[in-house]
Every structure is written in C-alpha cells, then in structure tokens.
C-alpha cells in the first residue's frame, strides 16, 4: 500500500516537472561571457521569487548576443560593448529596434604573476608591450625577465574593450603573444607564467594573479582597479555592460530587467565582483 502511494507521489512529481516548463514563461538570455556571471546569479535569484518565470542563460560572446536580438533567437542579448554601426543598421533593416539597458560596469584589471615586483604601468607602456616594442620587464623598471603577452582572442568583447580603452585601437602585434579562448584561460596562464602580463574582468580577480595600478600618462594618478574606483569614475579601464531587448519589453522580460536594476539586483552585481550602475546605500 505504502509502495503504491510512493509510486503515485513519484508519478505526480514527474508529471509536474514535465508540465513546469510548459506553464512557466521562459526568457532566453544569450551573449557576452563577461555578463554571464551577472545574468546567471540574477536569473537564479529572480527565479526564487518568481518561480513562474524560467530564465535560460547562454554565453557565446557580445557579437552573438546582439545577433540573437537581431535574429529574434533570444529575448535578451548580453553585450560588454556598445553596438557597432553595422549592427544597428542591420537591426533596423530587419525591423528590430534595439533597446540598450545599462545594467552594470566592468573594470578590466591588468594582471601579472604574483612574484612580479612591478606595481604600476602607464597606458603607453602597456601599449608597447602589446605592440612588441617592450619585450623585457627590465624596460619598465622590473627584473630581467622576458615578457609574455597574454590576450583574449581578437573576436571577443573583452579584447574589443581592451583594444579601445587601452591600446588606442591598435591590434596585438607582439610576436608570440598568447591568445586565450576565455578569461579563465588568461587568468590561468598568467598565474602559471612568471613573465606574463594579461587582462581580465574585475569579476575574475583573485590572489593567483596580481592587479597593477594604471594611469593614462606618466603624470598619473596611478589607480588600482577596485569597485569604488570604477563607480567613482577614477579607474580608466572600465566599461558599461548592457542587456539588449527588441523594443521596450513587456511582461516577464521587463520584470527581470527591473529586478536587475533594483537595489537587490545591483547588490547581486556587486556580489559577482562587478560594479553596480550607481552607489548603493548599504
């Protein structure tokens, strides 16, 4: 008898889990891997208070996120850069009106191996490293150690931001520069290579690598990447992160975005190591 009840309960449970995706609203979020930790955490928390809405979060990169909105294959496109002119015109030509929601900030940290004694660099010095004119740490006041330049792949949004914000639009031309498929791979390579320099999102900073203070010019001020410095607009290598929708959204998508922009959502942004869009009262 008990066995029958258990079977029945199992059956009811199975049927209800099968039925759940049908009953719930599903939001598809696709795009930049930089936004991914934010999207994942906020989706989880949002689902806890609104179980009727299921959010599916996928990566793929900023270009993919924007393309997904243009093609209508996602409800929200994640991007860590602003849309390009070609993407705007492509969208408008297809009758899509992209609405860019400013949901968080990302600061890029320039990182080195923890054993490296160098503390600060100017943009000019970093540019020299990525262009191949600086090949040894002794050229910037460090030890006699061959420089290993580490970059994200040139198609990624993270590289795009670094190129615009630090390299002044130049490409990475240093011979033997390592190109990594993910931020985690950049971090891992820098952590394993004494002579390495790389760049990663603030959300990925950890004690395995050390962040440098950076300044646009020798005159300074040299500023360390930190949440306060980014919010205050003091830190030079930072950028806004966007979620893109087609037109102004309604229903579940609007509810989700309003949640991210609320104080509770922005605290989650802070929790993932990114920087909120405004200073939060604690």
């Amino acid at each position, binding site marked *: 008898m008990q066995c029958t009840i258990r079977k029945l309960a199992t059956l009811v449970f199975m049927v209800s889990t099968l039925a759940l995706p049908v009953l719930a609203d599903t939001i598809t979020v696709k795009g930049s891997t930089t936004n991914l930790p934010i999207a994942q955490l906020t989706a989880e928390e949002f689902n806890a208070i609104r179980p009727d809405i299921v959010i599916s979060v996928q990566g793929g990169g900023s270009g993919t996120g924007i393309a997904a909105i243009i093609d209508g294959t996602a409800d929200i496109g994640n991007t860590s850069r602003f849309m390009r002119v070609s993407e705007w015109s492509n969208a408008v030509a297809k009758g899509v009106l992209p609405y860019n929601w400013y949901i968080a900030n990302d600061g890029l940290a320039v990182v080195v191996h923890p054993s490296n004694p160098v503390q600060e660099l100017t943009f000019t010095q970093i540019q020299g490293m990525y262009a191949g004119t600086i090949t040894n740490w002794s050229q910037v006041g460090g030890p006699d150690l061959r420089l290993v330049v580490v970059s994200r792949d040139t*198609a990624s949004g993270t590289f795009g931001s670094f190129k615009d914000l630090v390299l002044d639009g130049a490409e990475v031309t240093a*011979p033997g520069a390592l190109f990594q498929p993910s931020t985690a791979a950049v971090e891992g390579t820098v952590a394993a290579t004494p002579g390495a320099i790389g760049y990663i999102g603030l959300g990925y900073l950890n004690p395995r690598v050390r962040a440098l203070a950076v300044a646009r010019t020798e005159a300074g001020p040299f500023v360390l990447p930190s949440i306060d410095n980014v919010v205050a607009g003091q830190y030079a290598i930072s950028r806004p992160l966007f979620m893109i929708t087609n037109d102004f959204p309604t229903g579940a998508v609007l509810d989700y975005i309003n949640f991210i922009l609320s104080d509770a959502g922005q605290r989650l942004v802070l929790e993932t190591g990114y920087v909120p869009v405004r200073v939060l009262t604690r």
Partner: protein
Amino acid sequence: MGACAAASLCALGLIVLFLFREGLPVFRTVSLGAFLGGRHWFPTSEPPSLGILAMILGSGLVTGCALLVAVPLGIGTALFVGEVAPPSVRNPLKVAVEMLAGVPSVVYGFFGLMIVVPWIQEVLGLPTGQTALTASLILGIMAVPTVASIAEDAVAAVPDTWREASLALGATRWQTLRTVVVPAARSGLLAGVLLGMGRAVGETMTVLMVSGNSPMLPPMLGWPVRTLTASIALEMAESPVGSTHYHALFAIGAVLFLFTLFLNVVGELVGNRIRGQA
C-alpha cells in the same frame, strides 16, 4: 545498408556545400592570394586584414613535428604487434592503442595544459610552455592509433609465404622484417602516415588549449603558434553570422577540408595499391 551509406554521403555533400557557400563570399573582400599569402590576421580591424599564411605554416609545423613523434611510435607499434609480440602481449597492446584513440581530445588538452605545458616551460627554460613543440608532442601521441592501426593492416596483408620463404633462405627474423615485410608493406605504411597526418592537421581542441594561438611568422618550435583549426574554434563563437570574419572562418574550414581530402584520397589510393599487390 545502402540507405545508410547514402545518408552519410548526403551529409558529407551538404557539409561541403555549406562550407563553400559560407566560405566563398570572403573573396568579395580579399583576393585568394592575399587570403592564403597574407601575413596579418586582424579579423576585427576596420578594414580587416585576413591573411592566413601564419596559420597555414603553423598547422604545417605542428603537423610535421607531430608526425616525427607519431610515425616511429605508430609504425613501431604496428610491427611489434603484427610481427614480434606473442599473442598474450599482442591483444592487450592492441586494446591499449585503441583506448588511446578513445580518449576525448579535450582530455588530452587538459592534460597538456596542466602537465606538459609547465614541464616544457621548466625543462627548456622558456618564458611560456604554450608552444608549437608542446602541441606537436601531444598531437603526435594522439595520432599514434591512426598510424598504428593502418600500418598493422598493411603488415598483416603481407603474405605469410613471403616471410616463410625469407626465413627458409636463412634470413633472421629481424632481416625478414627489415628487408621483406617493411618493403612489401611500404604503401600501406605510407597510407597510415598520410591518414595520421590528416588526424593531426584536423585536431582542434587540444591545440587550442596548449599552443598559445599566436599567429607568428615564421612559426618556431619553442614559440607559441596558431593553427587553422584553432583559429576557427577560437573565433567562431564571437563572429557575427554573415560578417566578413564569419565567411573568412568558413574559408579557413574549406582550406582545411581540401587539405584533408587530398591526404585521404592519396592515403586511400596508396592503401588500395598495397591491397591490390597483396
């Protein structure tokens, strides 16, 4: 069975069609010569530079050096399994080599990144262990099963009467192996090498993880290197569908396809010749 064959042929046909349909539009932006011989690969620049010479040479270097590992090991294994080893050793060894082929390439890559890369970095005193050499070593091991299995078939196809005749004439087993079996199986061994080459040139995940992906000219063993396959895997996810960059990546795919097709056709022709002889 005929339907199955037709289905796989159909799939191949569609893949080829798609590859070229998506790849050819890149030549509206860049000429074939500038694509194959261009020294710079800056696909996201305005305007983009779409030269894949560094990657062609990178793939060539890594594949060539991988063969230096795979050919001696693969053919040595085949000769040992087919000619020397007693049955009690032969079967476990064959299973082991087959298992080598069954290990997912991402596992090879992970092993390479965690173990081989730091080891190369330390032993050779290089600034980074993500080099062409590292990729070659691991790819070489990965290509051993391909080379070994085809070489083994080739050796097995040599008629026993030839061996018996050689031994009867007073030749030792080593002399028989060297002067009768290997020359007779020559074409099949070559086919194994060519197909092993196809395996190495097409491998993606492992190379992506351990080679540093740097489009260097000229590529050098102790330096990072970028292969054709790694370029596609690295950038495909981020290139917007229909962009020049996207078409360029498909064109790289077409180049790879033509190269492996060439290797397979030559490998098959050479392989058939040995079967025809024997």
